[in-house]
C-alpha cells in the first residue's frame, strides 16, 4: 500500500497536546496520543485548518525555503493570484511581480493570464460534455483529496482540465529551456502558495506521476522580503499598471471567480470544507443534477482564505473584486485570444494527464463478516461511552474513540469519564503499575487445581 504524503507535520517539541487541532479537523484525522498530536495519513486531506488552530505553532506547513532557488540554473516564480490581494490598495500586480524579480527569481509569470486561458478551455469542454453532472472544479487539491477519501463515486465528475499553475509551469519551462538552451531540469518553477496543500500536489499529484512545478514557497515566508523589495516609487497611473491584467483570470483567487467566467446558466460556488461537504452529500444522494458546474474550495472565500496568506480574508476578497470592477470600468480587456485557446484546446493542450484514483477509508476489516462483527462491537462500546465528545481520551468524538478501540489503536480505559465513574462505583483500578512481585507472572497468576 502506498504511503500518502502530507504537507503538514507536527513539531513534537512545540506540541503541548492541547487538542485544539483535533477538534477543528474536519475529517477527524488527528488524535492526541501521549500528549502529542498525531496526524492520521489516510484521513488527512491537507486542508490546513489545524495550522490555524494551534496556538503554539506546532503544526508546521511543509513548503520550500526561498534558499531552494539556488538549486537551479534559472528560476521562475508563479504566484497564486491570491498574492495580488495581500497588499494595500495602491499596490497592483505589476509592482508585486517586479518585486519578486528583485528577490532572486530570474523570471516571473502572471498566473492570471493562464487562468484566463483555462476559463476559455473549460467553456470549450462544457460545450460537448454529456457525462454525469455537476462537474466539479479541480483547482483546489484539498477538494480532490476530499473526493478521493469521502466521495469516490464523484471522482468521474472532476473536471479533466489541467490546473493553471501546472500548465503555466509546463509551458514556461519548455519555452525558457528553448530560449536559454538549458535542459528543463535546470529550470526551477516555484509556485507562491496561499496554502500548504499545493506542496502535496507537487510532491504527490492526485492524478499523474509528477508535477511540472519544482516547489512551493509560502506567501507568509516571502511577505516581508517582498514588502521591502517592491519599488517604493510613486504609483503609476492606475490604468497603466492594470493594462496587462486578465480580468477573467484574476477572479480565480476568490470563490465564484471561475464560474463568473463560464457564462453558465446553472453553476454553484462553495467555499469552506464543511460547506463543501454539505454540497457533495447532496450530489451523492442524486441531487443537484441540474447544476452544470460546481466550483469548490477548502478555504473560506476561496484561495484568498488560505492559511499561508497574510491579509485578512475579507479585505483580500474585496481587493480582488475592486480590481475586477476597475478593469470593467476602464474596459481593459487584456485577455487571451479565444481563437488561439480554441486551437490549443483541440490539440489537447489543456487535457489533464492521468486519472484520479479513489482513496476510500480503511474498512474495519477486509473480510465483510469480520467487519460487521467489529462494527457491532464498536457500536456496543459507543453505547457505553458518555457521548459528550469531550476529546479527553485523545479522539475527537466518542464514536471515533470507539472505532479506535475496535481497531486496537486505543484502549477503553483511555476514556477518563468512564474511568472516573468506574472508580466512583468502587470498580477495580486499572493499569496499576506492576510491582516487582507481579513480574514473575507464571508463578503468581497460575495456580494448580485444588
Amino acid at each position: 500500500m502506498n504511503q500518502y504524503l502530507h504537507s503538514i507535520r507536527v513539531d513534537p517539541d512545540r506540541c503541548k497536546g492541547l487538542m485544539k487541532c483535533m477538534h477543528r479537523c474536519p475529517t477527524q484525522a488527528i488524535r492526541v496520543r501521549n500528549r502529542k498530536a498525531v496526524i492520521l495519513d489516510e484521513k488527512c486531506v491537507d486542508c490546513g485548518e489545524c495550522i490555524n488552530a494551534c496556538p503554539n505553532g506546532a503544526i508546521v506547513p511543509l513548503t520550500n525555503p526561498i534558499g531552494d532557488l539556488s538549486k537551479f540554473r534559472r528560476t521562475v516564480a508563479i504566484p497564486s493570484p491570491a498574492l495580488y490581494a495581500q497588499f494595500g490598495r495602491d499596490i497592483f500586480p505589476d509592482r508585486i511581480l517586479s518585486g519578486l524579480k528583485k528577490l532572486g527569481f530570474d523570471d516571473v509569470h502572471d498566473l492570471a493570464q493562464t487562468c484566463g486561458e483555462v476559463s476559455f478551455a473549460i467553456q470549450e469542454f462544457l460545450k460537448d460534455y454529456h457525462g454525469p453532472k455537476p462537474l466539479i472544479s479541480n483547482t483546489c487539491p484539498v477538494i480532490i483529496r476530499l473526493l478521493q477519501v469521502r466521495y469516490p463515486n464523484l471522482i468521474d465528475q472532476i473536471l479533466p482540465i489541467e490546473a493553471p499553475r501546472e500548465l503555466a509551469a509546463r509551458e514556461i519551462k519548455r519555452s525558457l529551456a528553448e530560449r536559454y538552451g538549458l535542459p528543463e531540469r535546470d529550470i526551477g518553477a516555484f509556485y507562491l502558495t496561499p496554502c500548504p496543500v499545493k506542496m502535496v500536489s507537487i510532491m504527490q499529484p492526485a492524478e499523474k506521476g509528477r508535477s511540472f512545478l519544482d516547489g512551493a514557497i509560502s506567501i507568509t515566508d516571502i511577505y516581508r522580503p517582498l514588502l521591502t523589495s517592491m519599488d517604493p516609487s510613486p504609483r503609476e497611473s492606475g490604468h497603466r499598471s492594470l493594462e496587462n491584467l486578465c480580468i477573467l483570470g484574476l477572479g480565480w483567487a476568490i470563490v465564484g471567480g471561475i464560474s463568473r467566467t463560464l457564462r453558465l446558466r446553472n453553476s454553484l460556488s462553495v467555499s469552506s470544507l464543511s460547506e463543501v461537504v454539505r454540497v457533495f452529500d447532496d450530489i451523492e444522494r442524486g441531487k443537484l443534477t441540474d447544476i452544470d458546474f460546481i466550483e469548490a474550495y477548502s478555504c473560506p472565500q476561496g484561495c484568498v482564505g488560505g492559511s499561508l496568506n497574510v491579509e485578512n480574508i475579507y479585505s483580500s476578497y474585496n481587493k480582488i473584486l475592486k480590481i475586477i470592477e476597475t478593469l470593467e470600468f476602464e474596459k481593459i480587456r487584456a485577455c487571451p485570444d479565444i481563437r488561439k485557446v480554441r486551437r490549443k484546446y483541440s490539440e489537447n493542450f489543456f487535457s489533464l494527464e492521468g486519472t484520479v484514483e479513489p482513496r476510500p477509508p480503511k474498512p474495519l476489516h477486509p473480510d465483510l463478516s469480520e467487519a460487521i462483527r467489529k462494527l457491532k462491537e464498536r457500536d456496543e462500546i459507543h453505547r457505553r461511552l458518555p457521548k459528550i465528545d469531550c476529546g479527553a481520551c485523545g479522539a475527537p468524538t466518542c464514536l471515533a474513540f470507539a472505532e479506535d478501540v475496535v481497531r486496537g489503536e486505543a484502549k477503553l480505559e483511555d476514556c477518563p469519564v468512564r474511568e472516573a465513574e468506574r472508580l466512583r462505583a468502587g470498580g477495580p483500578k486499572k493499569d496499576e503499575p506492576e510491582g516487582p512481585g507481579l513480574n514473575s507472572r507464571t508463578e503468581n497468576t497460575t495456580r494448580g487445581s485444588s
Partner: protein
Amino acid sequence: MTLRDACDILQADILTGEEHLDREVKIVGASDLMSDVLAFGQPGLLLLTGLANVQAVRTADIIEAGGVIFVRGKRPDQDSVDLARRNGLPLMATSLMMFPACGRLYEKGLHGVTKTVSSARTSSVSEELLTRTFEIAGGDFSKAGHVSMEIKDILQELGISSDLIRRTAIAAYEAEMNIVMYAARGTLRLDLSPQALVIEVADEGPGIPDIDKAMTEGFSTATPEMREMGFGAGMGLPNIKRNSDDFSIRSTVGRGTDLRLSFRLNKGTAEE
C-alpha cells in the same frame, strides 16, 4: 458466593486476577457467541465461555463482567491474559464441558440472566447480521437525508464497494424523502449480511392507489411547494427501483406503503 467459591466448585485454574477472587458472584452467563454476551451481559456477570481469545476478554471487559471461566480445558493466549490483568478482570480455566460446568454452579444456587433481551432481533441472529432501524418523522425536512448519510457511513466503514454505496444511498434517500413528504411517520430498516443488503421501509401514510402509475417516471403527486424544493419530479419510486437489485412494493390506501429493496453483495468488500 465468591469467585473463589465458583473456582473451587469447577476445579478451575486461575490465570490472572487472584486478588479479585473475593468478588461476589450473583449471576452467571454462558455463551460462545460474543454478540449474545454483549446483548445480555450485565456488570458483575460471571461469564462461562468456550471462546478462548482476546475477543472474549474484550467483550467481558465491555460488559464489566466480574470474571471469565473458560471451559473444555481451553486457555487464551498470553496477550489476552495480559489484557485481562491490566483491566482487573479475573480469568479462570476449567477442564469441564460447558453443560456440566453450568450445572454445578446452578446446583449451588447460582442463576442466569432472567431479563428478556429488549432487541430480540439483533441478539437472536448470527453475529454476521447487522440490523439498524431508523425512525423517520413525516414533514421534518430539517432532518431529511440524515438516514441515508448514516447508512453511507456504515457501509463505508465496512468496506462496501463505492458503486454499491452510491446506489444504496440514493435509494435510501428517495425512500426517506417519500416518508418526509407524504407520510405521518415511518421506519427504515437496514439488514446487512455478508451476502445481501436489504432495506425495508414502512410508513403510515396515505398509501398509493395506483402503483403502476406511481412507478412511471415523471408521474408525481407532489405539491408545487415540494417541487419548488427540487422534489416531486416523479422520479422517486422509479429511481429506488433502478438503483436496487430487487424491488417490491405493497400499499394500502389510507394505511401506508411498504417497500423492500435488496442489493447483492457478490463482489464483497473492497480489496485494495
